[in-house]
């Protein structure tokens, strides 16, 4: 009776696939073809003659581009092998990328968008032929209006930061329309608001003032008031902030901004903890945005396309980007030009259609009750995980001592670092050895040796336990076998990578051709 398999160890024995593939150019074999192009019909050829030969010399490319020549299966194999060397959220207990709401992207939604009746639609088609897609755009706008409490919604942008840009562009247009464009040159944000608020405001020509929190990590109302003035165009804040702390005085913040004639812009990229609980409108905001690729489940796609949604009050509605999808009295949908005050197009056409359909489907799968459940369980998961993490010697959650957090927590390994010299970044790299992603936090590291975890609603208790146990194991290693941590990764596709080449213009190699030229061309060799 020998069969029984011993129980599995507490910590997963993981190894990432390793294919050690060359760079694709190295796979080239003269003459091979990956896909063939349809030949021009003889009739066309006869009618047009030698179109290439008759090009002006300036337009005729002298030699073919040095793309690789590879048969189809080998191209496929190469990229499939690379895919296995990538830790998608579908494989991961992906709670380690705090602020990014790595929730489950339902496969049914990927399947639904695959129809040619979406992939093969052109935005200039007769609206009569596009009633389905227009209906979904319009319906999702209405849903997000309800979820935010705002009046009108635009889905044009391809990411959260682009939506933040739209926010500030509308604010700018609004003040200009009111003749205050010259006067209002400042935007106020907080250090725990996403960096794109500061950066987009700057790109729009504003000076940026950053408010720091009080000792307990709460946004500092007094500091805000000191910064506000008639020069203020807007406050642009995230709430809950990256710390997972909800600003209890958010209404006062908005009121204070309004008191000096500024607008209030709410970064709700990640609204995951408060869906159905509280809304941008309830706190008095003039404009907010959501990331469909966070709160509303569209996949993160290696870093996009995501999708941004801007929601505004009636006062800002005239400034929304265009074109607009409208519902006519007979219930059909049409495309209308943006109005005269609009900031115009912020991106081509109507936004990231595949993600708009996915987000619509996600909301339809959950409804009001489900959205609330998502928020509540995300918050439950977060507080549960916090209890587990704080039980690890060396980990702490600075600020708001003894209080609960909303959907994420910015933690610190400061104590562990002081004890061992092992940094948060090193711990993150070692976590990959167990098949888990871990991210430090946004810069600057106001919290020392930071890491931000956000479990969302997608993970079961068992998965949260696994993540926490793995963190604890790495922390133990940091104390007992720090070299194991410092020399990580050990179970990964690649090994410790030297970053010094990446910041030196003489040495960096941003493309294969630059690499060849810099290091292997005759002139270098000689």
């Amino acid at each position, binding site marked *: 009776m020998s069969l029984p398999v011993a129980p599995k160890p507490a910590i997963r024995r993981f190894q990432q696939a390793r294919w050690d593939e060359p760079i*694709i150019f190295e796979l080239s074999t003269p003459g091979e073809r990956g896909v063939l192009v349809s030949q021009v019909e003889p009739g066309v050829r006869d009618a*047009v003659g030698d179109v290439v030969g008759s090009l002006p010399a*300036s337009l005729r490319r002298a030699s073919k*581009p*040095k*793309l*690789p*020549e590879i048969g189809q299966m080998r191209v496929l194999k190469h990229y499939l092998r690379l895919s296995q060397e*990538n830790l998608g959220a579908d494989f991961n207990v992906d709670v380690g990328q705090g602020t990014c709401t790595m929730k489950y992207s339902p496969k049914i939604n990927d399947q*639904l968008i695959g129809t040619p009746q*979406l992939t093969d639609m052109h935005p*200039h*088609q*007769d609206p*009569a032929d596009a009633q389905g897609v227009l*209906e979904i755009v319009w319906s999702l706008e209405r*849903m997000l209006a309800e979820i935010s409490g705002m009046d009108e919604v635009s889905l044009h942008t*391809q990411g959260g*930061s682009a939506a933040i840009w739209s926010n500030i562009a509308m604010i700018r247009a609004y003040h200009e329309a009111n003749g205050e464009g010259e006067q209002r040159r400042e935007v106020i944000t907080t250090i725990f608001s996403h960096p*794109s608020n500061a*950066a987009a*405001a700057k790109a729009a020509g504003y000076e*940026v003032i950053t408010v720091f929190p009080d000792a307990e990590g709460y946004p500092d109302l007094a500091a805000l008031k000191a910064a506000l003035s008639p020069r203020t165009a807007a406050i642009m804040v995230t709430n809950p902030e990256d710390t997972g702390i*909800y600003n209890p005085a958010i*209404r006062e913040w908005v009121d204070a901004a309004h008191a000096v004639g500024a607008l209030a812009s709410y970064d709700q990229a990640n609204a995951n903890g408060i869906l*159905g*609980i509280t809304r941008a409108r*309830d706190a008095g905001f003039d404009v907010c945005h959501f*990331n469909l690729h966070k709160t509303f489940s569209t996949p993160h796609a*290696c*870093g*996009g*396309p995501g999708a941004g949604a801007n929601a505004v009050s009636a006062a800002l509605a005239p400034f929304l980007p265009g074109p607009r999808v409208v519902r006519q009295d007979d219930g059909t949908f049409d495309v209308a030009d943006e109005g005269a005050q609009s900031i*115009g197009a912020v991106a081509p056409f*109507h936004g*990231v*259609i595949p993600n708009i359909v996915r987000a619509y*489907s996600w909301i*339809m799968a*959950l*409804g009001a*009750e*489900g*959205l609330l459940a998502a928020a509540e*369980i995300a918050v439950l998961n977060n507080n*549960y995980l916090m*209890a587990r993490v704080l039980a690890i010697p060396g980990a702490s959650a600075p600020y708001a001592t003894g*209080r*609960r957090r909303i959907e994420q927590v910015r933690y610190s390994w400061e104590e562990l670092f002081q004890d061992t010299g092992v940094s948060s970044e090193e711990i993150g790299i070692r976590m990959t050895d167990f098949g888990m992603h871990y*991210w430090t936090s946004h*810069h600057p590291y106001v919290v020392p040796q930071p890491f931000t975890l956000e479990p969302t609603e997608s993970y*079961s208790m068992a998965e949260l336990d696994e993540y926490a146990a793995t963190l604890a194991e790495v922390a133990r290693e940091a104390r007992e076998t720090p070299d194991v941590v410092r020399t990580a990764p050990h179970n990964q*596709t690649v*090994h410790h*990578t*030297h*970053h010094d080449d*990446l*910041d030196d213009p003489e040495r960096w190699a941003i*493309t294969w051709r630059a690499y060849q030229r810099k290091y292997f061309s005759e002139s270098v060799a000689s």
Partner: protein
Amino acid sequence: MTFVHPYIPNTAPESRAAMLAAVGAASIDEFYADIPESLRLNRSLDLPAPLVAEQDLARHVRGILAKNRSTQERLSFLGAGVYNHYVPAVVDEVIGRSEFLTAYAGEPYEDHGRFQALFQYQSLMAELLEMDVVNVPTYDGYQATATGLTMSGRITGRPRVLVASDVLPAKLAKVADYVRAHLTLEHVPTIDGTADIAALAAALGDDVAAVWVETPSATGAVEAALQQIADAAHAAGAVLVVGTDPIGYGILTPPSLGGADIVTGDIQSLGLHQWYGGAHGGFIAVHDDPKFIMEMPSRLFGLATTDVPGEYGFGDVAYDRTSFAHREEGKEWVGTAAALWGIAAGVYLSLMGPEGMAELGETLLARTRYAQQALAAVPGVELDDDAVHLREFTVTLAVPASDVVTALREQGIEPGVVVDSHRLLVCVTELTSQADIDTLAGALASVITPELAEENKR
């Protein structure tokens, strides 16, 4: 809660209760203690009843989408920023891989595949464009060109941009609003579809940050005099920023060889479906010059060595440029943009290879020329210019363009995009057959009767 939801495992009552107990909370409401009562919604959101059973959701969404009629069901000559090119199945296979589709911001270790795939995308685009540096894609061609121009402003410290080509109105609107805190745009009207070199030279001065050329332009005209423009711009100390579509560069000279400093554009043509205009990625290409590179806001993935010989490692080049590193002190901003589409374009170029891109370019030139000839042969249809055109061109009709569109739609044909009362922008690709073009010509002829043409002349 009345349901356990498949997407939310801990809606299972036992788990929920166990977790609350573990953290010593009586209810979930405790976690929300910091949210003042006055801000609470305290009612259900007013949303449609949920379709929690996947079969019901699928039927509902499929039912809505079935109201669409796709360009597979219509004969489409629509372009104007979205192009119906063939997408090889391998492209969809690769970007449909769960590992790529759902990954996000992992380290170069756990996400080696993503880094390599995007480094390859950069490298493949670099060969097509003959430029040494290409970014991890930004949102779209609009954004890419807008950023190309703001880069030129920062590089030169100058305030004016000369727009030398016809630009799609929406792109122009986006760019104008984007750059206006830093730059003013001045349009130098085109002649015969392409740049008016003399007027451009006259407008240049030492306050010009950049000359902006679009090629193919909004009407599909290819700029043949790029080098002259570059020379003039450079002589004035300005940067040449080109907005383009990379699809033709298997056969056409890429702008870098015509003196462009910053080449920008959209990758939708390279392996992305039309998606009702919802799939774009923007590239920004520059030479390997830190003066330019350090002004780029996007991420740049570079090669690096690892502890193991023969192992390619990757990492972020000059990360300190970015808003991730320095918030408003970074260059513009960076965020979630279009990485997966970049991978798609990389797979596309890997499959097409030099021969494929060359054949495709030739096919597009030939079909465009054929379409121009076929349409010009229709009484009441005139070509607007005789520049070299790639894929798109405009015609002036003897009757209102919108009437023609209405009439042809009834025959299942989308003849093009109306760009003016009597002007139509017509687009063909490698998917448009000779027979398709002949059908369009025939349909146009049947609609633009000589009588109607006569009437409209009065």
